[in-house]
């Protein structure tokens, strides 16, 4: 309720600039890779480190006043990259990536705190880009919980099906799972269909 009121009255007092866009999703879906591309393209600097080891992003990181131009229109965003949300964290999972036990334990501890921080930031978002790995099952309970909470809080959502450059992977499974939402298939790593992503992002911004 508070969020709805905030958004309603906020619309009167703020110009549609510095739109807060949160990048949410499960770990290793490519949230930071995508946020990095946006920040690098429009500010010249990346936002955070990426890695194959899950939970590389363990703190919310953001960049203010990212001015994006698309088809003669300009919008200013606050890009908020969040740690991946999960229901379990086991430091032993990190050991197989070659991390030392102490480092893995520290990473696990920071990851749990990162998830709590991600959830706390949800209410502060104007809109959310949910980044999913197109090669994974979209019906996971974490995905349901994230999207369910965005729907309940009336926060506009764009679904990104990432990693479509991988063999036998397309956005189709995600599109089937979310027929009522704009789903855009991209590869952040190979920079595939970023034009489609920016078009969808501007459409999302208009729905706020």
């Amino acid at each position, binding site marked *: 309720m508070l969020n709805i009121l905030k958004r309603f009255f906020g619309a009167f007092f703020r110009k549609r600039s510095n739109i807060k866009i949160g990048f949410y999703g499960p770990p290793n879906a490519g949230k930071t890779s995508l946020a990095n591309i946006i920040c690098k393209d429009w500010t010249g600097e990346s936002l955070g480190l990426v890695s194959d080891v899950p939970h590389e992003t363990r703190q919310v990181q953001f960049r203010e006043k990212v001015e994006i131009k698309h088809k003669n229109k300009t919008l200013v965003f606050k890009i908020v990259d969040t740690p991946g949300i999960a229901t379990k964290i*086991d430091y032993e999972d990190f050991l197989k990536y070659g991390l030392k036990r102490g480092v893995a334990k520290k990473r696990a501890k920071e990851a*749990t705190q990162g998830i709590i921080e991600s959830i706390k930031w949800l209410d502060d978002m104007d809109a959310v880009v949910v980044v999913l790995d197109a090669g994974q099952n979209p019906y996971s309970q974490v995905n349901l919980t994230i999207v369910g909470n965005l*729907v309940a809080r009336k926060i506009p959502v764009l679904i990104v099906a990432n990693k479509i450059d991988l063999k036998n992977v397309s956005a189709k499974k995600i599109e089937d799972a979310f027929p009522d939402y704009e789903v855009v298939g991209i590869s952040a790593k190979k920079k595939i269909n970023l034009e489609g992503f920016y078009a969808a992002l501007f459409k999302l911004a208009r729905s706020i």
Partner: protein
Amino acid sequence: MKSDKRIKGVSLHIIPFSEIRDLSITERIRKILHLVLGNKVVILQGRLRVEEEIRLIEDTMAMVDHVKSFKGIELAVIEPDQGNESIVMKIRKGIAKTLVGHHNALTIIGPASIVKEIKKDPKKLEVLLG
């Protein structure tokens, strides 16, 4: 020497909807996590509201941070009549039904270290040991 981590058995705890109907969100989550921390797999009649699910994840993470050897939870909702529906329909029905009390679903919450996989099948529930 490595400790024997094999689990000899699994304890299921069934919570009827009537047992949580009048509890606040904090009390519901506390009750569930108390059982899960006791190495029980909780089978809840009905489903949690979406805001309760996210709070469960939040509180679980706080527990992982503080309770040694607790690695988190596995969470699944089984709804017999929603086999092949899209996530959007599941969410819509979920939100609508939680407002009136949704008894048809089952929510399964177990410690991640015990529950390796919870397979969703309306007729047959398999709990595999890790």
